[in-house]
């Protein structure tokens, strides 16, 4: 089971365009239930002190949206 960090919309907006480490940007996405989430890699590799609160995020099971393949 893959886990991801659950974000509020306000938290998602704070992360957009920001780096969690040098040359690595946060990428909040929506899961199958339209929750905003980020990966545990972004949480664990975060070196940006502005986002130390990430370690307190609730972790939930990742349910991906369906990939359309043509």
């Amino acid at each position, binding site marked *: 089971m893959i886990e991801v960090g659950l974000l509020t919309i306000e938290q998602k907006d704070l992360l957009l365009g920001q780096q969690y480490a040098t040359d690595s940007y946060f990428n909040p996405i929506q899961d199958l239930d339209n929750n905003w989430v980020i990966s545990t890699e972004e949480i664990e*590799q975060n070196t940006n002190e502005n986002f130390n609160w990430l370690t307190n995020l609730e972790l939930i099971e990742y349910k991906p949206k369906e990939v359309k393949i043509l």
Partner: protein
Amino acid sequence: MATNINFNKILGVKKIAISIKSSSIDPDAQAFITAAAITDPTQQSAINTLVVGLKADNLWTKMKAIYPIVGGTASQHKYNLKDPQDLDSAFRLQFNGGITHSANGMLPNGVNGYANTYFLPSTQIANADSFHFSVYSRTTLGPFVPAFDIGASIITGIDNDDFANAETNAFYFIQYFGSTVVKNGFYSATASFIDPTSLGLYVGNRNSTGNITAYKNGVLKNTGSLGPSGLAYCPMLLMGASVYYPDLYPNPNDWSASVGKRQLAFATIGVGLSNTDNTNLYTLVQAFQTTLSRQV
């Protein structure tokens, strides 16, 4: 090998020192080594040998972007060997989401990690019938795991959420149901082959000979019929493929990313390659990976 010649002359009270240094490092290799702050001599040598080989085999000019993915960090992996500037216009990678960088390459998390090349096929490729892209994969996946490695895709003909009549203008690799699928052009332009291990160098190619071709480790694996030419106007991604639905979103910047799951250790984008080019490219890339002790 460096050659140093020192001339010291005493002319009256003046001592003139002339130092001539002749370096064997190719200037393009040196520019990349400097930009990416590659200090390891083995890595430096591997990069130089790669550049010299690409030039000797007439591959260098056929490449628009080359990603050696060497050094072990995002700040080193981001650089394009053909133009090692820290600029979007130089096709420097921007990493988004969860990616693990190491000496073996870059591994996306399969959730939201990918790299944007900023390479727009529609503006960067002059001839839609001369185009290639490649990746070197160090990961093999299970048979039912779709994973995009590189690509850009425009999907049209969608009615609300109904994809029944959808068509795609796509350029990508994907491993899917135990096969590797290459699309290079419209939906009909597809080459796929059974591929249970998904390790090594993959090249998707389209050239003026009238077909698209899929190569693995320098070997032609399949040829697909050439559909109508088309070039996507959303960016090529690494460790993923951009997907844009113009029928749903008016702004071309509103593309989304289908992500990958395989560790990549090399990638290129450029014009179409011949059979000989593919053989030579594999020989060079495999030697490069072997020097770096990460060959598969």
